[in-house]
């Protein structure tokens, strides 16, 4: 791209925010920018998990939450800033996934409260909004921990407030805020020991920083498509993740590599593409551009025709997204899970399940509904609400079965008029133990109390592959090793599944158990699972060992000890 037109483009973007009022439509662009920049840097955030386990995925949870927020306003012609941000907060609330997503949605809620009724944004309103956002976020967490996204929210509110002493310009305040967000994130290991030990900064805080930085980059006309760490070469353009965010009506993914005849006007290019489809990404490398877009079936050749008019196409890739999704659906689905309808007025239990086999076990125990968390294993608040709002009863119990889903469950409980008890189950075995205490015609509070007590009835072991090298809980882990967690704490790590199981046999006190159930995941073969079961039976003959096909992703084994 020619220097001139690039600079003009940047200047126009900067002017727009400095001269025209920052209204509802401006906010829409900012939300899109924050979302895009976060998505671009999603992997960086994902890689900041303290525990080297493949779920928890803060990056993708925050992206999906922001996506839901954006979807809420994407078509809106609203000009009033206060009204627009209210919609953003609502979208984030309903689409919140994972603990980080829920807290992020609380931050948006606070920002919306702080700018209630405002026509367009100014400095004082912005600073005030950050303060309310901080308060709302802290209030939403039962036991606030410093060194997390909460601390970042606190620090940026402080800086925004201080900035008011010198300026009323919201852009300047945002600049200070973004700078402080970065520094605050860098300080998180000093506040939270696990971060320091793991050698990472807080993922949620980093995610928030990216969202705010994305907005600033947009205002300054900087690109949003190459991740922060480096200007991504063409070869590393992150197209894989877009699969998870297919919008309705976008059936095809089209990727075109081309050399433009004349210097490309990025702004015109983008706006033309925006008329054709969504999820637009443009990457550049050595005079060669790569354009990525999602379009509906009828328009699948338009991006090609358009790019052809601009230059020489060197490569085209078209993929039928629906077919891809169906393929994934088919692999993960199989026999649909049959749920027996509940009797009106009885207690309905909703369980979150990571795998088909586990879903069927819950169904066989009489749950009224199952929410499958999807690839990230984290359902949104809306997913949870939908699972029980339509049921013929006011008495509901939620079993999140994962500590990263408990907040979204509590969120859903608050948003409904039905009586909902959330049992803070952190693992599948805990969820099943709670399920055994269900008395469908019983009193909700009493049954919930029983279920809470049941959580201690069972111990859980989880076996998975380490996604990072780390030393934690006194155990040294190499990326790729098979690790064992017991009741959520890292217990052992070894090169092979067999070695890790042997470790488990050594370290656990099997005397106190009667029954062990092995749920094997979708990466494990039936016969391997049975081998491990036999191993246990031989070394502990007093135990009963059951093997079940859990079908869960990421975790080779989830084991319950009773």
């Amino acid at each position, binding site marked *: 791209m020619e220097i001139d037109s690039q600079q003009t483009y940047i200047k126009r973007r900067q002017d727009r925010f400095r001269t025209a009022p920052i209204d509802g439509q401006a906010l829409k662009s900012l939300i899109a920018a924050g979302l895009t920049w976060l998505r671009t840097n999603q992997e960086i955030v994902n890689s900041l998990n303290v525990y080297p386990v493949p779920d928890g995925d803060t990056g993708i949870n925050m992206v999906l939450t922001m996506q839901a927020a954006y979807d809420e306003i994407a078509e809106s012609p609203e000009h009033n800033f206060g009204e627009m941000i209210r919609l953003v907060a609502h979208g984030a609330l309903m689409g919140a996934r994972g603990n980080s997503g829920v807290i992020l949605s609380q931050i948006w809620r606070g920002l919306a409260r702080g700018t209630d009724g405002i026509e367009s944004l100014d400095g004082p309103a912005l600073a005030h909004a950050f303060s309310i956002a901080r308060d709302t976020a802290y209030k939403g967490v039962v036991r606030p921990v410093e060194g997390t996204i909460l601390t970042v929210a606190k620090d940026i509110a402080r800086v925004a407030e201080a900035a008011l002493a010198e300026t009323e310009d919201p852009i300047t305040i945002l600049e200070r805020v973004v700078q402080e967000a970065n520094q605050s994130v860098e300080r998180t290991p000093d506040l939270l020991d696990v971060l320091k030990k793991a050698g990472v900064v807080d993922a949620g805080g980093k995610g928030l920083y990216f969202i705010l930085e994305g907005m600033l980059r947009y205002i300054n006309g900087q690109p949003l498509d190459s991740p922060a760490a480096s200007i991504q070469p063409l070869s590393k353009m992150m197209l894989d993740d877009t699969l998870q965010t297919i919008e309705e009506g976008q059936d095809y993914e089209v990727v075109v590599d081309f050399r433009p005849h004349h210097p490309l006007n990025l702004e015109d290019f983008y706006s033309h593409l925006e008329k054709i489809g969504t999820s637009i990404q443009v990457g550049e490398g050595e005079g060669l551009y790569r354009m990525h877009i999602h379009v509906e079936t009828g328009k699948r050749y338009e991006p090609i025709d358009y790019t052809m008019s601009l230059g020489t196409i060197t490569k085209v890739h078209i993929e039928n997204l629906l077919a891809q999704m169906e393929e994934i659906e088919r692999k993960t689905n199989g026999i649909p899970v049959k749920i027996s309808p509940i009797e009106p007025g009885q207690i309905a239990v909703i369980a979150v399940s990571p795998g088909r086999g586990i879903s069927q076990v819950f169904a066989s125990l009489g749950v009224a509904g199952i929410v499958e968390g999807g690839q990230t294993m984290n359902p949104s608040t809306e997913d949870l609400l939908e699972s029980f709002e339509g049921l013929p009863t006011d008495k509901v119990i939620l079993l999140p079965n994962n500590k990263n889903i408990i907040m979204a469950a509590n969120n859903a409980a608050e948003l409904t008029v039905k009586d909902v008890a959330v049992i803070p189950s952190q693992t599948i075995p805990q969820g099943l133990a709670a399920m055994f205490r269900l*008395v469908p015609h019983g009193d909700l509070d009493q049954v919930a109390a029983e279920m809470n007590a049941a959580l201690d009835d069972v111990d859980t072991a989880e076996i998975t592959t380490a996604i990072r090298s780390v030393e934690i809980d006194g155990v040294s882990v190499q990326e790729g090793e098979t690790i064992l967690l017991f009741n959520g704490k890292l217990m052992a790590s070894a090169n092979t599944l067999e070695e890790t199981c042997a470790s488990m046999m050594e370290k656990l006190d099997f005397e106190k158990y009667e029954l062990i159930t092995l749920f094997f995941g979708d990466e494990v073969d039936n016969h391997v699972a049975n081998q491990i079961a036999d191993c246990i039976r031989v070394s502990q003959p007093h135990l009963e060992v059951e093997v*079940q096909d859990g079908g869960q992703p990421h975790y080779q084994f989830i084991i319950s000890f009773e």
Partner: protein
Amino acid sequence: MRIALVTDSTCDIPHELVSAYNIHVVPNILIIDGKSIEDDEHFSRQDFYKQLPQLHSFPTTSTASVGTYQKLYEQILISGYDQILSIHCSSKLSAIYSAATTAANSVQGQIEIVDSRQISLGLGFQVLEAADAILKGLPLDAILGLLGKMRKELHVIAMLDTLEYVRRSGRVSWARARLGAILNYKPFLEVIDGDVLSLGEVRTRKKGIARLMEMVRSEPSLIRFGVLHTDAEDDARLMLDNLGLELPTEPLVVNVTTAIGAHVGPNGLGFASYYQAELEP
């Protein structure tokens, strides 16, 4: 006024007590592989439960006919009784009550048909209390009042080996809707107000027995108590011994009526209790 006491064989009252109190027990009918068999003192419940898992087709239960009840009532009234008190299995679980009622309508005389809203010793204890009341010379109204109050002070709870028999029998709607079990567990059931309701599950039999004992121990003062089982006499006696209860009446151990047993399967274990909710002044 001489009052005659009638019930059906789902009451599970041991034969000695039936004779001692002169209770008329109408046997229920069991249909095994097409053959009708009466559930009376000649029928071996133990043999039945042993056969149960191997039967080709699911055994069904049926009631004695209206005619049988009618003849019995007429016979009783002719032999000199003035009133008949006929207490039966919950109408929600069996057609016995309706057969008895229909029969009573075509017989001249004072016949009171009572829906016990219970089954097994839940019904049996009501019959025994009625028998005691008759011996004490209480009038019919008073006895009916006593029974009404008593129904709130009964527990009938059971742990089954599997939910399969209940599911297949189709008699209990929520169980019918349940999918086949994937994990092994022992279901707990309770008879409340004539219906069979779920009390959750436990993972192992050992835990189940512990839970049953816990439940018994948390009962207020017991007046009558019985351990119920379907072909699990050893477990039943062991549990009773371990409970070490002190009662004003002799505790019973019964191999439960096939009217229930066919629908719950062998190796079931439970209890029936009649307790005093508050102390009489």
